[in-house]
């Protein structure tokens, strides 16, 4: 009977272990298939095409040029290497400027023919037209823009996911934003965290430690949106006033909030590591005439180096992946930040802010999944590199 129960328990543990692993693998797989789908999508908004007059010399246009044309930043064809003619933009809803409603037919059945006619009559026109209105006898020139390319995404400097006719999914601004915020957050949190850990582990007496430690651990239980709120009310005006900025919502603000959030983890993990340094090591150092500080810096800290590094990783992990608080205080502008005092936007904040408005299965949606993959990869790289380093440090 006892053996039977043990067999059942063993079976249950095996099943749950397998199920969890498979679920995790499926999540990763899902992320990758959704994200990779982005590269099989056309650059131009799905279901639309860019068309030109056949007499126009231009045969290729870059995505940026098309964007600038539709933003009225490029107004003459000679700016992109064509004839000296003013560019005429044509969107579907402009059709009523050229034709009366009767001409288009009751069911709009004449629209394709009229568009074809219009494009062939105007040499200087550029049209952004739904594919359904482009029939086989179309009299214009269809520009083949191709699919979204790897380099458009990974080296793209602009993140404009909802622009027409062409959206930009360059992730550089988001990556730089994430790196800035996380890096500075860690730079702030690390010295404070390790100092607090040294204080708690080596200097504070029992009574103080018994009060301080639960308080610090309590900090990690505060929801991140509360931290974000705190950052918005306290740190944003503080940063704005200290650095005389037009707005206080900057990378630095996010870093400070993140540093505060990462502190409890860094402190508790590294303090535990330091307290794990055996008494015999300390005694040996002191017995050789080493002072208390020499013992801390030459014995205790090196001994707990791997614990401290894992504290750092956990801190960075929290900083890189943290969403809500950062979303609230960094200003969310998706431009490449050249300094920490600029508003910037992180990867997780982008996903959180935009997923709600991205149509299911669309390009934008897939681009957000791709961001998820990148976030996943960044944390993986950090984790494994630190594991590698701490494994090397271990004696």
């Amino acid at each position: 009977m006892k053996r039977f129960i043990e067999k059942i328990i063993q079976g249950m543990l095996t099943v749950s272990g397998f199920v969890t692993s498979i679920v995790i693998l499926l999540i990763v797989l899902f992320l990758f298939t959704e994200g990779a789908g982005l590269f099989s999508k056309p650059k131009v908004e799905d279901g639309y095409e860019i068309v030109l007059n056949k007499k126009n010399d231009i045969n290729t246009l870059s995505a940026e040029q098309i964007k600038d044309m539709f933003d009225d930043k490029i107004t003459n064809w000679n700016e992109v290497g064509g004839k000296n003619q003013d560019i005429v933009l044509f969107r579907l809803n402009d059709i009523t400027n050229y034709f009366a409603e009767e001409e288009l037919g009751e069911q709009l059945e004449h629209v394709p023919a009229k568009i074809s006619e219009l494009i062939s009559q105007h040499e200087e026109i550029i049209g952004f037209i739904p594919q359904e209105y482009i029939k086989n006898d179309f009299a214009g020139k269809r520009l083949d823009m191709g699919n979204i390319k790897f380099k458009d995404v990974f080296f793209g400097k602009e993140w404009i996911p909802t622009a027409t006719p062409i959206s930009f999914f360059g992730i550089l601004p988001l990556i730089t934003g994430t790196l800035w915020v996380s890096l500075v957050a860690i730079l702030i949190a690390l010295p404070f965290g390790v100092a607090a850990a040294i204080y708690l582990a080596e200097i504070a007496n029992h009574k103080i430690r018994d009060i301080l430690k639960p308080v610090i651990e309590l900090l990690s239980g505060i929801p991140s949106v509360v931290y974000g709120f705190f950052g918005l009310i306290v740190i944003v005006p503080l940063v704005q006033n200290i650095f005389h900025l037009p707005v206080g919502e900057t990378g630095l603000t996010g870093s400070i909030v993140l540093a505060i959030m990462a502190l409890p983890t860094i402190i508790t993990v590294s303090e535990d590591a330091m307290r794990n340094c055996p008494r015999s090591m300390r005694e040996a150092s002191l017995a050789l005439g080493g002072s208390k500080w020499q013992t801390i810096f030459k014995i205790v800290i090196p001994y707990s180096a791997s614990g401290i590094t894992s504290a750092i990783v956990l801190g960075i992990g929290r900083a890189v992946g943290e969403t809500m608080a950062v979303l609230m205080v960094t200003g969310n502008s998706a431009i490449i930040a050249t300094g920490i005092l600029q508003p910037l936007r992180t990867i997780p904040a982008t996903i959180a802010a935009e997923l709600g408005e991205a149509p299911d299965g669309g390009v934008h949606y897939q681009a957000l999944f791709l961001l998820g993959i990148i976030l996943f990869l960044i944390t993986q790289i950090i984790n494994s590199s630190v594991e590698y380093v701490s494994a090397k440090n271990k004696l």
Partner: protein
Amino acid sequence: MNKIEVKNVDFYYGNFQALKNISLEIEENKVVAFIGPSGCGKSTFIRIFNRMNDLIPETHLTGTVNIDGIDIYQKGTNVDALRKKVGMVFQRPNPFPKSIFDNVAYGLYVNGIKDKKYIKQKVEESLQGAALWDEVKDELKKSAFALSGGQQQRLCIARALAISPSILLMDEPASALDPISTAKIEELIWELKKTYTIVIVTHNMQQAARISDKTAYFYLGEMIEYDDTKIIFTNPKKESTQNYITGRFG
């Protein structure tokens, strides 16, 4: 001249009195063994000489402990300097997680010595002094943890010798070792006696009889008897000592 003089020392862990009114003198270049059953206070006593008990909170000491004629418990004593003079080897080998070389050099580093040539020479001397040099001279860069238990303990002795102490405290240095390593350590103690005053705590009475000049027997925080080792082991004055050394208890 007496190297160490202890007068009327009482020692307390909180309210518990671990040592009761102990007085003894230790001459220079002698080996003195402390024996006694577990919990008799002999380890507490040996840790008084380098003020290692300071690390334990809520302990205090009354009486005087003089080393080279200076009270080491008087206010303003430089404890780090004291510990440089009074080296200690612990019960379990406790090398640092560093290389063999760095383990021995550690005491020199923390005492502010930077001269690389001197450090190298001192490391070699110390390892030779601890009879370990021949075994490790080609692998000084290797982790100390790669050594055997007995080698680790000799490394700890070398580490203590490197800072040139005049007194060496050994708290059951061979209790965690096999008989061959123990024999090596004992041989080493014989050698070291020429240059150092050695205080050793041991559970092993044969060991005390083999290596020490004088022996102190402790029981329940009191020093019952302190005399030449020969007398303690052949003709003790107290019955309690007699009972302990003949193995009737302990």
